């Protein structure tokens, strides 16, 4: 299915589409308020962008510096070329400790690697501890947003899920009470956690630390109660210096939710006394993207989700319409690198309005990359044949002024003479499903101009 086919399903529920759009627009407005209140915000974006560009240009050095410092801190560092290797490393560590249960805080990387189903298949109970992630885990769904994984659900949906799985009263949809239920339910899991998996927001090369940002405190609670901490990170999470965090902590949450900072910005440098800490550094296509000059800037992404909140398409099609771990505009430029054929429709799921580029806190030229992916897809033959041939025909017409004038006249006359029901049949004219065609004038501008000149 293409993005547009999946969107059409989402759009069937018009009221829900309105609600989804308005909810995310509200987040975008909160972001705006926080950004307007930070006078140096645009300067910070430039700094963040430059720091990330620099890091990518010396990634080889920073990866090794980070590894060396982490090892010196008593942390064990593992390298995974792809998702399969990442999953095998994590399972190996769990087996080594005889663990049958793991608590996991938010990590888009483990989603990308499909770690949960893999561990479950191997007899490990995985508990997602972020509230949003827990909700969708209970519903066996994928996250629909990188920061707000359950944003596609209404409180009634969550109420039903909690009634089914956690025994809340049917019809209790109060977010306060549902959250309290999740707190009690997950506390038991935290207390019994043997191993904790966390994601990584930033990895500091000069100290070997990983930084994890949460509002709920679930990463800290899980990690600090477990015997073993496994932090999983994509290799693009590196930043050179501790002081660079000042830039990133200032832009991350302001862009994401409009908060000035997350409740917990935690720096994990050495394992606790008698405990173990592991870091898994994952490639999974990132080095390939690094080698694509037009697209490498996508590796600067800090997963704030601002491009999703602002995207007028995402807000009306929902995260699942992208059918990729990272939805929205950033997902549309990351996904073709992973599987060009499967995700061929995503770079076309945009009007190229450019709002994503303008909210991006690390200044990724998202809409330009969408345009460039379209060209790559076009040249690779990954666009529908009908589009390919009609564009070729259009090119013939538009590069020959005589043919263009004639074609225009014929088309306008046709529109004038044919019955409305035929010209507006939605079956072959998608324009007309919800829109009237322009009323064809008797004369084109060029015909009028020629007439004037003739007089």
């Amino acid at each position, binding site marked *: 299915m293409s993005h547009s086919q999946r969107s059409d399903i989402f759009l069937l529920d018009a009221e829900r589409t309105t609600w989804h759009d308005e909810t995310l627009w509200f987040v975008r407005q909160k972001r705006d308020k926080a950004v307007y209140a930070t006078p140096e915000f645009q300067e910070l974006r430039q700094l963040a962008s430059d720091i990330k560009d620099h890091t990518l240009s010396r990634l080889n050095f920073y990866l090794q510096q980070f590894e060396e410092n982490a090892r010196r801190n008593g942390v064990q560092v593992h390298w995974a070329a792809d998702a399969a290797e990442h999953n095998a490393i994590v399972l190996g560590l769990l087996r080594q400790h005889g663990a049958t249960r793991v608590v996991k805080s938010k990590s888009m990387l483990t989603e990308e690697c499909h770690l949960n189903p893999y561990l479950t298949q191997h007899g490990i109970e995985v508990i997602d501890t972020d509230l949003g992630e827990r909700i969708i885990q209970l519903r066996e769904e994928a996250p629909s947003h990188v920061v707000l994984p359950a944003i596609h659900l209404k409180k009634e949906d969550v109420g039903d899920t909690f009634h089914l799985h956690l025994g809340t009263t049917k019809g209790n949809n109060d977010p*306060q009470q549902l959250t309290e239920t999740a707190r009690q339910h997950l506390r038991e899991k935290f207390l019994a956690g043997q191993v904790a998996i966390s994601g990584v927001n930033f990895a500091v090369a000069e100290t070997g630390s990983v930084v994890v940002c949460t509002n709920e405190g679930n990463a800290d609670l899980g990690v600090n109660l477990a015997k073993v901490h496994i932090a999983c990170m994509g290799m693009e999470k590196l930043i050179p210096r501790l002081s660079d965090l000042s830039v990133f902590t200032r832009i991350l949450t302001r862009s994401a939710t409009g908060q000035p900072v997350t409740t917990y910005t*935690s720096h994990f*440098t050495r394992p*606790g006394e008698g405990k173990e800490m592991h870091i898994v550094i994952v*490639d999974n296509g990132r*080095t390939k993207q690094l*080698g694509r000059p037009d697209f490498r800037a996508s590796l600067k992404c800090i997963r704030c989700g601002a491009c999703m909140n602002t995207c007028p398409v995402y807000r009306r099609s929902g995260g699942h319409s992208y059918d990729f771990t990272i939805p929205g505009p950033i997902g549309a430029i990351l996904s073709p690198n992973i599987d060009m054929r499967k995700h061929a429709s995503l770079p076309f799921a945009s009007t190229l309005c450019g709002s994503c580029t303008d909210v991006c806190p690390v200044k990724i030229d998202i809409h330009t990359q969408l345009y460039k992916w379209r060209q790559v897809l076009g040249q690779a033959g990954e666009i529908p044949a009908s589009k390919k041939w009609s564009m070729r025909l259009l090119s013939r017409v538009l590069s020959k002024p005589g043919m263009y004038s004639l074609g225009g006249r014929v088309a306008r006359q046709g529109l004038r003479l044919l019955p409305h029901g035929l010209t507006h049949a939605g079956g072959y004219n998608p324009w007309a499903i919800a829109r009237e065609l322009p009323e064809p004038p008797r004369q084109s501008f060029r015909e009028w101009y020629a007439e004037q000149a003739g007089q």
Partner: protein
Amino acid sequence: MTSSREKILAAVRANQPAELPLPTVPLFEGDDSVEKFTAILQGIGGQVVEVTDVARLPEVIHGLYPTDYRIASPLLPEANVPVDANTSIEVLAGVELAVLQGEFGVVENGTIWVPEANMLHRALPMITQHLALVLDRRHLVATMHQAYARLTSVGSYGTFLAGPSKTADIEQSLVIGAHGARSMTVLLV
């Protein structure tokens, strides 16, 4: 495992672009007043209580919390739950109030630096039902730039803590008290 490491690093070397400059980050000064710190922290669900005299700290705490709370704190003689790095999870889970020392506060976002050394146990600031941080009013900086400039080391573990634990994962409705502390009070001395 070594082979993946070498494979990845070789691919990075082959694919990374020519070196681009690393910028110097300015210190971006700003308002470092107690007033703004208080306003920002309240805005994110925290509470600020000014304590005129450090000696009155126990009295202030008695006024703020029920007297029968199980309290863990290195700062109060009346703390009744002894906690250290080896304290069992069951004991930690019973703590109702932790009173800990905050190192310094950041005015722009209401966050407070709490290093492991001030925590008794790494999980205490999150597992306690309620959290109070004692903060010297002279130890406020304007922005995160000054905050990191002040941190020569982040130690083994440390966190910038801003307000109580919260979530908005259900329909964007803000709920205070997700997994960590249900309330967070700063006792400004």
